[in-house]
């Protein structure tokens, strides 16, 4: 939401707190922090109206490193705290920082309800497919067979796809980015902030200590052009080094296929054009996974509701005053049946 422009142009440094950053060397969180600190000045925000709220986990240390208001809360509950904060003070620009364990395991319920209510906050879910802070147990997004201290023979539970969860819960802004892709991440953060309602951004993040290279198959430079499909509203779904591959939705929307584009292949006009307001398409894109498909990045879905939850609550509160006038406590206490003793 637009805020009062700051008196002077802020820079990245203005958003760096005096706290020493204590993530492990090489952690993807450093890159995300840098992206955020660079992106915020571009968005024209003020420090005092910006608040970072987090739960528990490596990612949740994030607020301490931002020179804004911040609240490091308890495990999984940041969405609920942020909801109360936003209801108390709708003027604030609230960012929720969570991880795959914090947001999808212990806090899955709150995340679901934040999304369905459409509270006007931005939520960044750092997905490293592992529990870092508790030393390496498998998480709800860990792959089948993941070996960890709690799954020495490999995990037997099916992983969750965060963006599919978000769409299923009714999210109206769903995006995916990559920790080290600072430029694209910055622009996603800006889009997320511009959206009125809950913005859900999954960020693939590397944990160099407990799950090093978990996303390499998608994010490493050598394979990126073939494994990453960056979607853009109104543009065909193309990927590959020379955009020689494209995605087509199968008849009836029952799935997608990858086709060769250009000489010896199909014309670009045959390729599905990304429509970020198309929810079924967003589901198809969110589910794309290696090895048969590229993974989709960018804004998968954006379809703002007329009113965010916060707007709707404020509207009702205002309407109550319009209808009944500013509440009078003495009149309230004397409403209903009373009698007087002389």
């Amino acid at each position: 939401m637009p805020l009062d422009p700051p008196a002077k142009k802020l820079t990245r440094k203005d958003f760096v707190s005096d706290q020493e950053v204590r993530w492990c060397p090489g952690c993807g969180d450093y890159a995300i922090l840098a992206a955020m600190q660079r992106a915020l000045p571009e968005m024209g925000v003020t420090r005092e109206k910006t608040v970072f709220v987090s739960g528990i986990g490596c990612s949740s240390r994030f607020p301490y490193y931002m020179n804004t208001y911040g609240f490091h809360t308890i495990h999984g509950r940041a969405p609920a705290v942020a909801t109360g904060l936003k209801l108390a003070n709708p003027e604030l620009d609230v960012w929720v920082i969570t991880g795959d364990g914090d947001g999808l395991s212990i806090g899955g319920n709150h995340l679901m309800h934040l999304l369905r209510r459409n509270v006007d906050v931005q939520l960044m879910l750092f997905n490293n497919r592992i529990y870092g802070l508790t030393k390496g147990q498998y998480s709800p997004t860990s792959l089948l067979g993941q070996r960890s201290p709690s799954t020495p023979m490999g995990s037997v539970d099916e992983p969750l796809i965060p963006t599919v969860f978000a769409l299923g819960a009714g999210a109206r802004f769903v995006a995916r980015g990559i920790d080290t892709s600072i430029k694209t991440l910055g622009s996603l953060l800006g889009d997320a902030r511009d959206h009125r309602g809950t913005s859900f951004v999954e960020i693939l993040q590397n944990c160099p200590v407990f799950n090093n290279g978990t996303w390499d198959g998608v994010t490493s430079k050598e394979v990126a052009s073939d494994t990453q499909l960056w979607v853009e509203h109104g543009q065909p779904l193309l990927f590959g080094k020379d955009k020689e591959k494209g995605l087509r939705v199968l008849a009836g929307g029952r799935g997608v296929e990858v086709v060769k584009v250009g000489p010896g292949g199909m014309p670009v006009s045959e390729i599905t054009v990304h429509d970020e307001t198309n929810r079924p398409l967003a589901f198809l894109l969110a589910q794309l996974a290696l090895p048969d498909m590229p993974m989709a990045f960018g804004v998968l879905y954006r379809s703002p509701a007329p009113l965010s939850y916060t707007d709707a609550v404020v509207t009702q509160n205002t309407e109550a005053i319009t209808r009944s006038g500013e509440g009078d406590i003495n009149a309230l206490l004397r409403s209903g049946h009373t009698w007087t003793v002389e």
Partner: protein
Amino acid sequence: MDTPVSNSADGREILESVVIRFAGDSGDGMQLAGTQFTQSTAVAGNDLATFPDFPAEIRAPAGTTFGVSGFQIHFASHDVLTPGDAPDVLVAMNPAALKVNLADVPTGGLIIVNTGAFNKANLKKAGYEENPLEDDTLSPFRVLKIDISRLAVSAVEHLELGSKSAQRTKNVWTLGLLYWMFDRDRRPTVEWLESKFAKKPRIAEANIAALNAGHIYGETAEMPQGVGTYKVPKAVVEPGTYRNVTGNDALAWGLAAGGRLSGLPIMFGSYPITPASSVLHALAKLKNFNVTTFQAEDEIAAVCSAVGASFGGSLGVTSTSGPGLALKGEAIGLAIITELPLVILDVQRAGPSTGMPTKTEQSDLFQAVWGRNGDAPLCVLAPATPGECFHYAIEACRIATKYMTPVIVLSDGFIANGAEPWKIPDFNTLERFDVKFHQDTENFHPYQRDPDTLARVWVKPGTPGLEHRIGGLEKHYESGNISYDPDNHHKMTKIRAQKIQNIAQDQPEQAVDLGNTTGALAVVGWGSTFGSVNQAVRRARGEGLDVSHIHIRQIWPLPRNLKTLLGGFEKILVPELNNGQLVRVLRAEYLVPAEPLDKIAGQPFKVSEVLAGIREHLNA
């Protein structure tokens, strides 16, 4: 009923006090009949206390003993402190209601039975092999046998409602009969029915017809020996404007008032739970009082939203009952370590676990005082009556914002649902406690403290130059930054404890509610047992026993003079609706020889039970 002292001019026997219990199936409308009788009794100028007692099931299987719903009212021409130990009049709408309640009726008591419900099937469901109306089961009592089902139906026959709707007027028919018997004005109930069923005029008409028919039946039918008409003269009460109030309504209004007095918006995050839900319902209607209500997805989200709101500069409030308080524990700890104001209303019920949701108990005291991980002190207040809930909700707002701490208000099911006449205070005479947010940027850090209260500064996000981060990790005393320093943690733990202890300096000294300030026995109660304990002590003193009543409203920190006060008594008896909680706190804190008097039945104390305990401890 007391022995009639005389007759009134219109030939009614004059009584000082009466206890009536309405009992029927949970679908029989007993709560409605009780509430209406309460309103008309208040109008008649009697003092009164009520005790609704209903099953957890919304509509338990008809005719069963566990589906019996009851409502007891005690009204008198003198002060009434309890809903009464035993009913002088029992209204039994079916065999199950008779079965469940008969044991409480004293010999000679009046029983009004709806014979229309005493059929074979109902008798069997209630566990009667023989019809108690036909054998000598009821011979110790005065019995009024009336086929209320049939009479109610015939009273509304002309309206052609259908038998189900016609049957449902039998509670109002019974109410009409009792209005005749106790000289109550029908008008308030008629007006209430007209407004309640404004959109269903035929239903309103039927109920009014039934009410009148019950009244006329009393006027015309020949009553058996010993059943007459009665009058309970007006009680002498302080002049003023009164209303009936339940504890939960008083809590909700107190929060709205507390918000107003603090100058803060209230953000009330809650999750439905018996018997606390009606606080949420009441507040949801008060949006024009700068109150935002949020029905969260669970108890944890409810308290977390309140903590988030307090961080944002509103006053965060949550309400719950025992199981919910357990779930909220971690987030309350967050409010303790971040030193944010937070008000938690715990309307206690019988536990552990789901326990008996609709039954009252005082068993969350330990949980309120100590039920969190770590050394996590906070303030705990316990109103003694429905009316006091208003005051303590305001007090909770004041303490929470002055000391930057969570405050738990311990109510219970008895206070929550029970009604009492309440002299309505004038809001304009209540003292304001406007909150001032910290603005000074010089040498700012978020754990700067007020040297007197030790309260942390409260900064509203949005304030330029005071950007800061707080959280659940231990913070350094000097800088407010994360700290694992051993000495610092020791110091911060002591400071958090001292801050809460400081609240005692701000609270009135503990008074003796009844009796002398020293003596042989102090009966120390808390919360909803006030009425029974006070009556019991009054009677014991009437018997010449050296006993005093001390009722604690400030559970933590304990009143600053309590140790000295208790030291003046040879014996201390602590009646509680739990397995001994306050008694252990007093023993642990003061090394005094406090003894428990417990009742863990989901029911309030009877005066006689407390009196027996007093006699036993004084060997009287």
